[in-house]
């Protein structure tokens, strides 16, 4: 019988329960074609709110990316959307429409803040399976994103190349090396060698010269377009994987345009960070690879946005990789079939509600007069509307046709596989 540890009620710090969005009854009208819930929303709204292009690239091209304060209302709206869809997904799992779902609740600021700093013209995001907030901030087709949780297609049904958002990755730290490799690709496109003093100059290893193997900082070439940057998402659990250490070392050796974005949310299923991260800090390890790092409050969306923009700017101008450790908290369970009661106290969970990213952002918006009651009412209503569009999109999803088992295995499928497919289709029908 699990002891119910609610200790010292009078000192119970849970001051502000999460603002619980009322999910209204399923809208009666069922759209025939699943709406592209979200993509258009971002384009119109981002430009509506801020004259300057949000892209960090404009920093390289002289006009600076908008400051966090300028787009703070927009960041709040996107966090509300992420939370509304997250809540809807949990409901859909409860009603059996989704087999399982890994909620992001509590990590909206770390995801929307970093996602909003990404410039989709040049950069590329490498998510895991919990980055719904980044997908929202980057305008990924959210019904297509949720397809992975609907178990209709592992990687999701959005277009990763067009979205600049790699397919959903179920393997912990699975895509961190990919982000590093993609970043090298950008560097090579910019005419720079992996290791080398100047563009295209052969990096002859002159052993007699003691600092020959000192990788000179490649001269940033800011005249032309910035070097595209990769941003790799992983958690405190994933930081134990060898891939992460190898990726950071390569990025250091090659001075690559990549941002290693760790959402330290305190838990890897049942293992707390103190039993996962020796030394207690993922960002501290960056020094070992010669990389700069920042440890930030992952629940302060403005701080996340600005730290990510700094790191992306450094990457764009040839300054190389950065490690960002966003301290946040996984308020919900690991997934809908995980029971946190088996490994952590209710007190701990509720103490983080006082650090709710939406609450913190709302407080700053109100204090600085950037938004009033009508803004928050409208934001909540809009978030609900988007989540209902995504819900309708999910519920109208039809299972993938059987031939899709075979369609994408190869770019050029061998005859034997096509024959196997034909026999299978015949036998099944």
């Amino acid at each position, binding site marked *: 019988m699990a002891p119910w540890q609610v200790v010292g009620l009078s000192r119970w710090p849970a001051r502000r329960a999460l603002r619980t969005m009322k999910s209204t009854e399923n809208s009666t009208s069922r759209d025939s074609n699943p709406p592209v819930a979200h993509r258009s929303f971002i384009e119109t709204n981002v430009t509506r709110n801020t004259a300057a292009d949000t892209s960090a690239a404009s920093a390289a091209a002289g006009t600076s990316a908008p400051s966090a304060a300028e787009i703070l209302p927009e960041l709040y709206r996107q966090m509300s959307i992420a939370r509304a869809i997250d809540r809807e997904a949990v409901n859909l799992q409860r009603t059996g429409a989704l*087999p*399982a779902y890994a909620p992001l609740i509590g990590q909206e600021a770390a995801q929307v803040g970093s996602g909003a700093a990404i410039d989709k013209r040049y950069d590329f995001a490498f998510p895991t*399976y919990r980055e719904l907030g980044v997908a929202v901030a980057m305008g990924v087709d959210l019904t297509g994103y949720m397809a*992975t949780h*609907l*178990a*209709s*297609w*592992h*990687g999701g049904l959005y277009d990763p190349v067009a979205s600049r958002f790699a397919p959903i990755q*179920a*393997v*912990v730290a699975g895509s961190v090396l990919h982000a590093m490799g993609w970043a090298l690709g950008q560097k090579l496109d910019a005419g720079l060698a992996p290791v080398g003093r100047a563009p295209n100059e052969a990096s002859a290893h002159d052993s007699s010269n003691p600092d020959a193997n000192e990788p000179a900082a490649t001269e940033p070439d800011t005249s032309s377009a910035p070097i595209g940057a990769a941003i790799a998402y992983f958690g405190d*659990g*994933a930081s*134990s*994987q*060898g*891939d992460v250490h190898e990726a950071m070392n390569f990025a250091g050796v090659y001075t690559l345009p990549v941002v290693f974005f760790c959402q330290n949310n305190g838990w*890897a*299923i*049942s*293992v707390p960070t103190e*039993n*996962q991260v020796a030394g207690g800090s993922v960002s501290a390890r960056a020094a070992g690879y010669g990389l700069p790092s920042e440890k930030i409050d992952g629940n302060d969306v403005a701080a996340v946005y600005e730290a990510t923009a700094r790191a992306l700017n450094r990457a764009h101008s040839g300054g190389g990789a950065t490690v960002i450790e966003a301290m946040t908290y996984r308020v919900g369970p690991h997934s809908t079939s*995980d029971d946190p009661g*088996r*490994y952590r106290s209710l007190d701990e969970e509720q103490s983080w509600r006082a650090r709710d990213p939406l609450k913190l952002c709302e407080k700053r918006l109100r204090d600085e007069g950037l938004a009033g009651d009508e803004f928050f009412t409208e934001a909540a209503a809009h978030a609900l509307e988007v989540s209902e569009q995504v819900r309708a999109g999910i519920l109208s999803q039809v*299972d*993938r046709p*059987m031939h*899709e*088992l*075979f369609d994408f*295995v190869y770019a050029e499928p061998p005859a*034997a*596989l096509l024959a*196997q*497919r034909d026999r*299978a289709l015949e*036998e*099944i029908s």
Partner: protein
Amino acid sequence: MTMTADTRPRTPHTETRHLSMQQALNLALEHSLAADDRTLIFGEDVGRVGGVFRVTDGLQQKFGAARVFDTPLAESGIMGMAVGLAMAGWRPVPELQFDGFSYPAMNQVISQMARMNNRSRGTMPMPITLRLPSFGGIRAPELHGESLESLFAHVPGLKVVSPSTPNEAYHLLRQAIADPDPVVFMEPKSRYWQRGDVLLPAPSDTESDAATAEHETTTPVGTSNVVREGKHATLISWGAMVSTCLQVAEYAAEDGVELEVLDLRWLKPIDAAGIQASVSKTRRAIVVHEAPLTAGLGGEVSAIIMERCFDALRAPVERVTGFDVPYPSGALEDAYLPNADRILNAVQKTLEYRRG
């Protein structure tokens, strides 16, 4: 799904309990920990929370955090650590949480664990049991439904086994842990909740190795098990597919066709003699596995049948397997996995076959 009780002669047991496979595995781990204080259990989420499938539930509370403990989230680290622990005289039982998570550990499994005894000329055996929830059928995300038996079976130095029932799960896990060599223990995760009668050795035996040693003589490593006698054709499979084949045999019986169902159990070493005995009798063979067709273990079994039963065969061996595609997401699982109709079609092909 009807499960026939295990019919083979068993060690003298004193107790039969109706358990799920997950409970049977939990009990086997508990008895193994009690029987040998050098046995260790570790992996992701296996200690405090008892494993994501609850297979190690309660063991840390019973045996303490020095015998059952959680590890950081790093599969290569887990297996490399297991090799080091074995070199230090421990009997590690690591868990890799899902089949697809074993890929990062392949370097340690193949180039270290499987070869250490050989490299050290027998002075450093690897009594490691790698527990691996395997195969598909639970609509899980990508890389949570892989069938890797042919990869592991191809590696010299590894033994590979997969239980098909709760009773097999108990006895084979005890046997694997007691084995001095590294054993990849592939648990069919879609059958974790399937219940069956488990024949338990006398409680006193659990403390001594007697129970396991005695068990050894009746079902040595590498022996298969005829779970249903028949005469018209033999269905050969392992793990989760055995109960599918039993169901097919019941359907076949409705049409007067008596199918023998052979549970291979050990995928390395494979029971060639057992295959030969059954196929020589029925003279037709259908191999069923979830893994993709090409270079799957079905090929190996077919070669054994060709080599040993060539003259007895009245039809080519049929293989009913997964397609040569990555294991799909939940929506397409049922189209991918061998089902009753596909197996019955293959059986009918062997029945109709006439030599040219």
